[in-house]
């Protein structure tokens, strides 16, 4: 019987440590398989030792793993894998079956060359597997929270469409993109007619319901690449990349039509609504995105003057003469 002294603690330690450790020879045969590997793989060390790792675990990415081990052998150097790029090497169950929400135990792996001290040849490679599921979960929660925060910061609370802040960021972005590539870019600004009267008659909850209904009805009419948002109050905007003035006018007409088609249901009441719409498009005379916005605003003003519930458009500011 072995004396129980520090010199033989190491094998016991390796077997009991809560980290996966196994060792391969240069032919990829398993020569050591610790208890962590046993309990997570369900394969006992006596079943695995002496066998080729790829025969025992055909799900391993053989070509890549062989290359990785070859580089360890050739360079006598460490090699690593990280859960962020490769979530797991072995499909092990993790210890968060209830609270997890992740498929398998997330793993960081270190491959180490084990040099024979007398020959200085690498005869074995050890692979150490760290369970980093908790880290991965925290990271996942963090990035979800950040995503949500980002969504909230660009969403209008009442209508759940984009807010003014995001519209302005998009103006900037789309304007420079359209200018650089000489793509068309058009814009629709629209404003609900006599909205103050709606608020006065039905109260603010009624007005809010109308604004929500506008968002709901217009959303299906815009494409995914369009940016539809609430500019403020009862004013909305659709920014339309790759769209000519004619295309934008057609969409504006559809928006006008769908808004006034049926009254908005508010409890037992029905609130009639309509909107005036102004359309502008990017031309060589327009130098900034503010000018494009200004032009859409002026067109909207025309629509109001032309009796509301209609679409107007301008290609050129009133105060500038045609080139």
């Amino acid at each position, binding site marked *: 019987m072995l004396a129980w002294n520090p010199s033989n603690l190491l094998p016991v330690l390796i077997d009991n440590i809560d980290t996966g450790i196994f060792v391969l020879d240069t032919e990829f045969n398993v020569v050591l398989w610790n208890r962590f590997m046993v309990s997570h793989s369900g394969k006992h060390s006596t079943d695995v030792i002496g066998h080729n790792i790829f025969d025992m675990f055909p799900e391993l990415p053989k070509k890549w793993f062989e*290359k990785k081990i070859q580089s360890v052998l*050739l*360079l006598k*150097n460490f*090699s690593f894998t*990280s859960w962020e*790029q490769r979530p797991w090497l072995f499909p092990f169950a993790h210890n968060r079956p209830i609270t997890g929400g992740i498929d398998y135990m997330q793993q*960081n792996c*270190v491959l180490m060359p084990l040099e024979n001290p007398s020959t200085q040849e690498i005869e074995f490679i050890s692979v150490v597997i760290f369970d980093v599921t908790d880290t991965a979960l925290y990271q996942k929660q963090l990035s979800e929270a950040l995503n949500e925060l980002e969504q909230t910061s660009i969403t209008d609370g009442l209508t759940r469409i984009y807010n003014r802040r995001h519209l302005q960021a998009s103006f900037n972005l789309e304007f420079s993109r359209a200018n650089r590539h000489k793509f068309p870019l058009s814009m629709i600004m629209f404003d609900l007619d006599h909205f103050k009267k709606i608020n006065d008659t039905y109260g603010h909850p009624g007005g809010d319901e109308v604004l929500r209904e506008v968002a709901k009805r217009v959303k299906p009419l815009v494409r995914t690449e369009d940016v539809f948002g609430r500019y403020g109050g009862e004013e909305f905007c659709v920014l339309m990349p790759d769209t000519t003035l004619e295309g934008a006018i057609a969409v504006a007409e559809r928006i006008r039509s769908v808004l006034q088609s049926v009254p908005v249901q508010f409890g037992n009441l029905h609130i009639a609504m309509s909107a005036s719409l102004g359309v502008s498009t990017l031309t060589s005379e327009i130098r900034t995105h503010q000018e494009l916005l200004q032009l859409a605003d002026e067109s909207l003003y025309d629509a109001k003057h032309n009796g509301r519930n209609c679409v107007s458009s301008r290609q050129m500011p009133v105060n500038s003469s045609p080139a």
Partner: protein
Amino acid sequence: MTKKILTSDQRDALQEVTNIAMGQAGASLAQVLGEFVQLSVPQINVIELEEINQALAMLVGATTVVSAVRQAFTGALRGEAVAIFDQEGCIELAELMGYEKELTPKAEQELMLDVANVLIGACIKGITKLLQTDITFSPPSVMAKNMPIGQLMHPSTMEWKLALVTEVNFALEKGRFTCHLTQFWPESSIVSLAEALDKFIESF
């Protein structure tokens, strides 16, 4: 250019050691990839923290957009190595490194980490072996994706003042893959490096 950090003998020795180590690294890389590898003559510079981004821009090319991987090594000699890849990165190496499927962004990152690990490991291991010290490596991590070279480092967040930087450029004979490998030896590590270099000089 090498300020009074190393004696001229030490500097020559470091140049020699680096030349040998990089040569070995190139040969190892060629063996791993099964392709011929070309390398530049290693450059050794002492740089101050404030000039780090300009210094890198000089080495790599001022207008270059790069991706970079960093990896630390610890032991008697401590430091950090940074592998700087061109914008195309190392996609060309995917097949040579055993990637079979189409590269997802994650796999592309992993490939970059793998290639950096091989290069950094081979170089540093070569240097420390010649200097007869042992080191270990921590896992590499991505420090930049598609970033102008001038923004790679953030001097305001760094603690050191002076560092010894060795640089070599690896390229595959076929294809466009190229990687600038830099090693940063912080001031605190330079004393140990100088001692190790003295021992190396004496051994001749």
